[in-house]
C-alpha cells in the first residue's frame, strides 16, 4: 500500500529531473540503436588503438601511453561532434525539433539529453581504450592518473558538443555528416592526435593550437606527463571559450531559424 502512495509522490516531487532523465535515456537508446553512429563512434578509436598502439607498436610503453591520451581525445571528439552535429541537423530537417519544442517538457531537456548522451558515449570510449591500454599495450599509470585521464577525456567532450550543436544548426540533415567528417578527420590529424606533432611539417605543427582538439589533447597528455609543457590554464581557457562561444552562436542560430 505504502509503495503505491510513495511512488507517485516521488514522481511529483521530481517531475523535472525525471523528464530530463527519460529524455537522456531515450536519446542514448536512439543513438545506440543507430549503427551508423554507434559503431564508428565506439569502434574507430578502439580499432585505431589496437592497430597502432598495440599491433604495430612492438612493446614501446611510452608510445602506447601517448596514443592512449590522444586516441581517447579522438574518440570523445567523434562521439560529441557526430552525436550533436548530425542528430541536431536531422532532427531539424525532420521537424522533430519543432515537435519537441511543442511538447510539455522542460525547454532545455533535449539539449541536456544530447549532452548526457555524448558524455556517456565518451565515457565508454575512454574506458574501452583504457582497458586495452592496460591489458594489451602494457601502459601502467598510477590509479589517480587513470581516473584523471578518464575525467579529462570525458569532460573534454563539451566544447565539441558545442561545435557539433552549431554545425547541426547550420547544416542540413544530409550535409551534416559530410561537414562533421570534413572537420573531424583533418582536425584530428592536424592536432597531433594520430601522429606526434613533431612528425608533421613544421608550419602545420605550429598551427596546431588553432584546433580545440589540440588543447584537449595537451590536457590529456599532461596527465601522462607527455605534453608540450604549456600551462593548463591556456588549454582550459581556449576550450572554455570555444564551448561557450559555439553554444552562444548555436542558440542565436536556433532562435532565428529553428
Amino acid at each position, binding site marked *: 500500500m505504502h509503495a503505491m502512495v510513495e511512488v507517485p509522490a516521488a514522481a511529483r516531487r521530481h517531475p523535472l529531473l525525471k523528464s530530463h532523465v527519460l529524455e537522456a535515456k531515450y536519446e542514448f537508446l536512439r543513438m545506440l540503436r543507430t549503427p551508423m553512429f554507434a559503431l564508428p563512434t565506439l569502434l574507430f578509436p578502439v580499432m585505431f588503438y589496437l592497430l597502432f598502439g598495440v599491433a604495430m607498436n612492438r612493446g614501446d610503453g611510452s608510445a602506447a601511453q601517448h596514443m592512449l591520451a590522444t586516441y581517447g581525445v579522438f574518440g570523445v571528439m567523434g562521439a560529441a561532434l557526430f552525436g550533436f552535429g548530425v542528430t541536431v541537423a536531422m532532427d531539424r530537417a525532420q521537424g522533430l525539433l519543432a515537435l519537441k519544442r511543442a511538447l510539455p517538457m522542460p525547454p532545455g531537456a533535449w539539449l541536456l539529453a544530447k549532452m548526457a548522451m555524448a558524455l556517456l558515449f565518451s565515457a565508454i570510449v575512454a574506458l574501452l581504450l583504457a582497458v586495452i591500454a592496460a591489458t594489451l599495450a602494457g601502459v601502467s599509470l598510477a590509479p589517480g592518473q587513470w581516473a584523471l585521464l578518464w575525467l579529462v577525456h570525458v569532460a573534454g567532450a563539451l566544447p565539441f558538443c558545442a561545435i557539433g550543436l552549431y554545425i547541426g544548426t547550420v547544416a542540413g540533415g544530409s550535409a551534416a555528416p559530410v561537414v562533421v567528417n570534413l572537420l573531424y578527420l583533418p582536425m584530428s590529424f592536424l592536432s597531433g592526435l594520430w601522429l606526434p606533432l613533431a612528425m608533421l611539417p613544421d608550419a602545420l605543427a605550429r598551427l596546431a593550437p588553432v584546433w580545440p582538439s589540440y588543447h584537449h589533447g595537451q590536457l590529456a597528455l599532461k596527465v601522462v606527463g607527455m605534453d608540450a609543457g604549456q600551462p593548463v590554464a591556456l588549454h582550459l581557457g581556449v576550450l572554455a571559450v570555444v564551448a561557450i562561444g559555439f553554444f552562444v552562436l548555436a542558440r*542565436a542560430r536556433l532562435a532565428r531559424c529553428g
Partner: protein
Amino acid sequence: MNRWPEILAAGAIAAAIAGAVLAQGASAEPAVAADVVLPSGGEGAAFAITGVRVFDGERVLPAANVVIRDGRIAAVGADVAIPAGIEVVDGAGRTLLPGFIDAHTHSWGEAQRDALRFGVTAELDMFGDWNRIPALRAQRESLGATGQADLWTAGATVTTAGGHGTQYGFPVPTLAADGDAAAFVAARVAEGSDYIKLIVEDFSTHSDERRLPTITPAQVAAAITAAHAHERRAVVHASSQADALHAVESGADGLVHVFHDAAASPEFVAAARSSGAFVVPTLSVVASFAQDGSGSALAADARLAPWLAAEQRGALEAAFPGAPRPAAFDNALRSVAALHAAGVDVLAGTDAGNPGTTHGASVHGELALLVRAGLSPRAALAAATSVPARRFGLDDRGRIAPGLRADLLLVDGDPTADIAATRAIAGIWKNGHAVVRPRMDAPAAAPAIAAGALLADFEDGATGVRFGHGWQLTTDAMAGGTSVADQAWAAGGAAGSRGALRVAGEIRPGFAFPWAGTMFHPGAQPMQPVDASARSELVFQARGDGRGYQVMLFSGPSMQALPSMQAFTAGPEWREVRIPLASFAGADVATLRAVAITAGQPQGAFELYIDQVELR
C-alpha cells in the same frame, strides 16, 4: 535582430585561438633552454631516460626506458612506461652505463672529485690514509647529493720496514722481517680496512741496481690466510711473475697489477684460472713505464680536456723517471690477452696518483688499453662496472638494474662498438643526483688580456707597463745559479724616443743553463695566466752588445712548465724584433703567464736595451 552575442562569441573564439598560437611560440623557447640542465632522480625526485641503449654491466639493451627515483634505479626495460609528471631525457643515439669503478687508485686531495667529473662513481684505493675510513664509509652509504666518487680503501698495506709504500714521507705501519703477519692484518682490520693489500715488491723488475726489502713468501701466505679469517679480501701488488704466482697459489683473491717482467706463462694462467683470482692489470701505469705517450694523448682528447684540472693535465703528461721500458708494457698487454682468453676476471684499474695517470680520465684510457689487449669493448666495460662490483662485493653498484644505486653515466654514441665513445660524456648521475661538471680548462677562467697592443714605451721616465704586473728581474739564482742582473730606465730610446729599459748584468758559472734578464707578467699577479689568444705577435725594439738573447714564453696550466724559447741578436743599432706567438712551440697563449727576455750562455757581462714592447 540583435546579433551582438554572435559577433561577440565568434570574436572570443578567434581571440582565444590566436592567443593560443602566440602563446605556443612564447613557451617553446624555455623548453629548449631547460634541456641543458639535467634532471635529478635523487631523494624525493624522479626522472627517466627514454629510448636509450643500455649497457647494464653485462648485457646490452638496444632501446630501453630507464626510470630513476629516490637515488635508485626504479625500472629498466624496453616496455617500461614513463610515469606522468617526471622529466625525461632523450636517450636516442646515446648509451647509458653504470658509473665506472676504478679498481686501483691512490686517492688523495681532489681525487674523488676529479674521478666523478669523468663518470667514475667509485674508486678502490689500494693504499691510503686509514684515519678517514669512517668518513668514507658514511659517504658511500649516503644517497645524498655529492660531488665526489665513493671510495673503498685498503688503508695501510702489508709491507715491511723500508719497503715499497714507506717512501712517501709519512709514517706507515710495517711488518718486521720476522713479524707476525696475522697480528699485522688484524690491526689493519681494526683500522677498518675494506680489504687487505699486500706489497711484494723488491724493485727487481724496475731497476737493475736498486733493491727494496719486501715481505717474505711465508708472510704473504700468512697474511692472506689472516685476511680470509677476518672475512676480508686479500689483494696483492706483485710486479714479477714469480711473486704473482706465489700470491695466487697462496690464495690471493686478486692481483692489483699485472706483472711486467714477462708475459704470463701457461703455468701462471692455469694457476690464476684454477684459483679464481682476478687481475687488475693497471695498464695505464704500465704504459706510463713505457713512456708511450698514452697519458698525454688522453690529456689532448678534446672530449676530456676541458674538464681536466691543471694538476690532472700535469699528471697525465708527467713521465716516470728513467729510461722508457716498452718491454714491460708489451708483456703486460700479452698477459692480459692470455688471462682474459682463459676466463680470468680482468678489472679496470688505473693506479691513478702515479705519473702518466689521473683520476677519472684515466679510466677512459684504461678501457681503450684493455680493448687493445684483446678484450671486446663490452668486456672492457664490464671490467669497469659489474666485474669489480662482483669481485669486491659492492652489491648495489656496477649494474643498471632495479633497486641498485643510481650511479650512471650517459654518453653520446655506442661504446659497445667504439670504446672511445665513453669519453663523449652527456651526463653523470651520482646517487640519482645530476653531477655538475664545471669546465676546468684555464682559458675559460683566465681574464682576457687588456685592450691595446702597446705594453710599454718607457716615455714617462720610468719602467712602468700599460697592463700586467710589470718588469721583474729574473736570474738563475732561483735555480741555484749565481748570475746577476739589474734593470733601470735609460734615456734615449728607439727612433729618437725619450727612453728605454736597460737590462745589464753578468752570466756567471754555477748552473747548467744560466740566465739573467727581465720578465714581464701580463696578469695582475706574477705568473697569473691571462688569455692572450687575441694577440699573434710579440714586437719590440732592441739594441745591445751584439750577444744572442732569448725570449721565453711561460704559459699553460702549470707555473712550473718549461718555457718555450725563441732567440734574437741585439746589435749596436736599434732593430725591430718580431716574433709570431705561434712560433713558440708548445706554448698556449690562451694561458699566457709571462714573457722573459734574457741573456744566457756564454758567460760574461751583457747589456741590452728594449723599447716599444707590443703584443700585437
